[in-house]
């Protein structure tokens, strides 16, 4: 079989130096220290002519490095690569524009850098301009272009220089849908002409519908290469697992931050101490019976003269959904604001919360709400019940008439 790209044991190491100029030092002093970063590890793959290959992998997996090596922009550290045919690459959108030159000038620049004759490009010019379809901007410097316009021009040039191998790296992600369709159409034509296409896209849907083969790269290693359906299934499963892991991690982190009671306050102004749940007889306990009065006490010390401090509190269920927040504006909620130590006792009368775990948080504000001093963040208390009275959070008194 004829291969368009043949890669054997390819490894790419990036040298990472502590200081940038150590790279220069390394030229003369062999013992200069550096770290090795394996961008690609021992990759072996043969891509036959006429395949449309999707390159799958997360960000930083090594996709772009591999494509750059195939293109010839960068060289492998070890291993060999053989490419048969003329490559046209659209690497990371810009495809090598000189931002000071106009679109037209850049088209010729590209021709020049690809070693094409000016005449060759002259005949392609009209096609490129038409395909890019960016109007008069073609005569403006590329630095004035939007990323979409750059992608259009880049793609237009890449497909119109008649390559044997087309490399498209993330180029379609910025274009609008009409342009995307146009590009896919053109790439389909390429496929029919038996040209090889290497395609990177984060749109799995596009890869699935366009590519007949896929390779999956993970942490610089080739995980698998084969028919799109099969590889895509593996890759999607992997993505799902990764996402589940992430979610789990997030949940763990959230739990941790919830369980320890944080006391957020501005200690130099007001300091709170001894937030306690109590029963009617003053006994310290955070377990209550359904329907009981719930008391909580808090001691606080005002250290700087303040005016009109207000206390408010919020009740939440175990999933931190707010059940009740006391009125923060009511005049009834003023507390003693003079400098000195005070204590406050709050009664929640005949609590109708159904058995379960609840959280209470309190806060102090001044009259304007300008000074906001959070206090106890979500202190848990438990409601126990002898009899089953219903489901949900709160008991609602009800009567039946029949």
């Amino acid at each position: 079989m004829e291969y368009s790209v043949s890669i054997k044991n390819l490894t790419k190491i990036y040298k990472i130096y502590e200081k940038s100029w150590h790279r220069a030092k390394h030229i003369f002093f062999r013992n200069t220290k550096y770290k090795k970063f394996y961008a690609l590890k021992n990759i072996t793959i043969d891509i036959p002519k006429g395949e449309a290959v999707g390159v799958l992998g997360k960000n930083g997996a090594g996709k772009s490095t591999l494509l750059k090596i195939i293109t010839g922009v960068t060289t492998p550290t070890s291993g060999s690569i053989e490419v048969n045919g003329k490559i046209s690459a659209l690497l990371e959108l810009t495809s090598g524009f000189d931002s000071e030159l106009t679109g037209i000038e850049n088209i010729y620049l590209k021709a020049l850098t690809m070693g094409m004759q000016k005449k060759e490009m002259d005949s392609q010019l009209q096609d490129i301009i038409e395909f890019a379809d960016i109007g008069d901007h073609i005569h403006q410097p590329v630095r004035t272009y939007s990323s979409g316009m750059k992608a259009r021009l880049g793609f237009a040039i890449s497909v119109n220089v008649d390559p044997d191998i087309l490399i498209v790296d993330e180029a379609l992600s910025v274009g609008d849908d009409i342009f995307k369709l146009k590009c896919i159409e053109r790439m389909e034509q390429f496929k029919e002409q038996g040209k090889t296409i290497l395609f990177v896209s984060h749109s799995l849907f596009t890869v699935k519908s366009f590519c007949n083969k896929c390779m999956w790269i993970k942490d610089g290693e080739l995980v698998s290469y084969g028919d799109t359906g099969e590889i895509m299934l593996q890759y999607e499963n992997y993505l799902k697992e990764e996402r589940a892991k992430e979610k789990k991690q997030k949940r763990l982190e959230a739990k941790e931050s919830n369980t320890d009671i944080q006391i957020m306050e501005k200690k130099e102004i007001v300091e709170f101490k001894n937030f306690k749940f109590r029963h009617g007889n003053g006994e310290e306990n955070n377990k209550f019976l359904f329907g009981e009065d719930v008391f909580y006490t808090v001691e606080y010390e005002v250290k700087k003269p303040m005016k009109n401090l207000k206390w408010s509190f919020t009740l939440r269920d175990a999933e931190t959904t707010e059940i009740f927040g006391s009125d923060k504006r009511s005049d009834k909620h003023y507390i003693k604001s003079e400098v000195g130590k005070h204590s406050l006792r709050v009664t929640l009368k005949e609590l109708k919360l159904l058995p379960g775990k609840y959280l209470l948080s309190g806060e102090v504000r001044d009259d304007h709400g300008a000074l906001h001093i959070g206090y106890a963040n979500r202190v848990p208390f438990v409601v126990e019940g002898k009899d089953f009275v219903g489901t949900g959070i709160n008991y609602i008194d009800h009567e039946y008439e029949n």
Partner: protein
Amino acid sequence: MIRFLKNPFILIKENIVNTGRTFEMSFKELEKRYSGAALGAVWAMVKPMLFIAVYWFAIDVGIRGGGDDVTGYPFILWLISGIIPWFFISETLVYGGTSLRQNKHLITKLVYPISTIPTFRVLSQMYVHLAMTIVTMVLFIFAGVYPTVYYFQLIYYNVALFIFMTVVSWTTSALVVVSRDFEHLLKSVTQMLFWLTPILWHLSNVKGFLKLVIMANPIYYFVKGYRDTFLTQEWFFENWHYSLYFWGLTIVIALIGAFIFNKLKNELADIL
């Protein structure tokens, strides 16, 4: 050792193969450099002339008080003939040094013969220099100094300038990519070289060993060469020992530069 000696030839070969491209790129570069400004390429002329006027005023009128001509020629003519190559060298030191960094798209996105990038940058500066040289000739005619057969050796000096600056750029351009520190260093050194080279002052003011140190600076080879051409009327081969020194030094710089360049060549795309 043989590999070390081979280094320059690798670069020279790549340059020869791509000569056509290099010329085209040098025109593009020139176009790019001056297309943004309203006066365009005129700036390339105006800037040095302003500098000459200022130096002439500060030195000849300000410091020397319009005293006698030490050199036997009007100070302004002596100044212009020496400073013309300096303008090219100072501009090109920085311009060649930043050539790879500023043409990053050619390295990271395209497959382009990297060693020709400093070449076309230096080449594009050559055009400006040639124009400046012609303006100088015209200026000298107005001042009553007419062209002589010695003007032909400007061809030699321009070829030497081109080779010397290209070879220097191998080192500087590669190092500037590695770290911005080298770019700052290069700019500072260029500033210092202006005062350390006998451009505004006469070499005869230093004596003995110090004179040799000052002459060791290859830039003075061109300053002297241009003055010999325009004023003193001396052929470059009359000074064959100094010419020999210059070419010897150029070869050493080429060997070191090519060594550094080839070492870093494959990493350039990764660091830019």
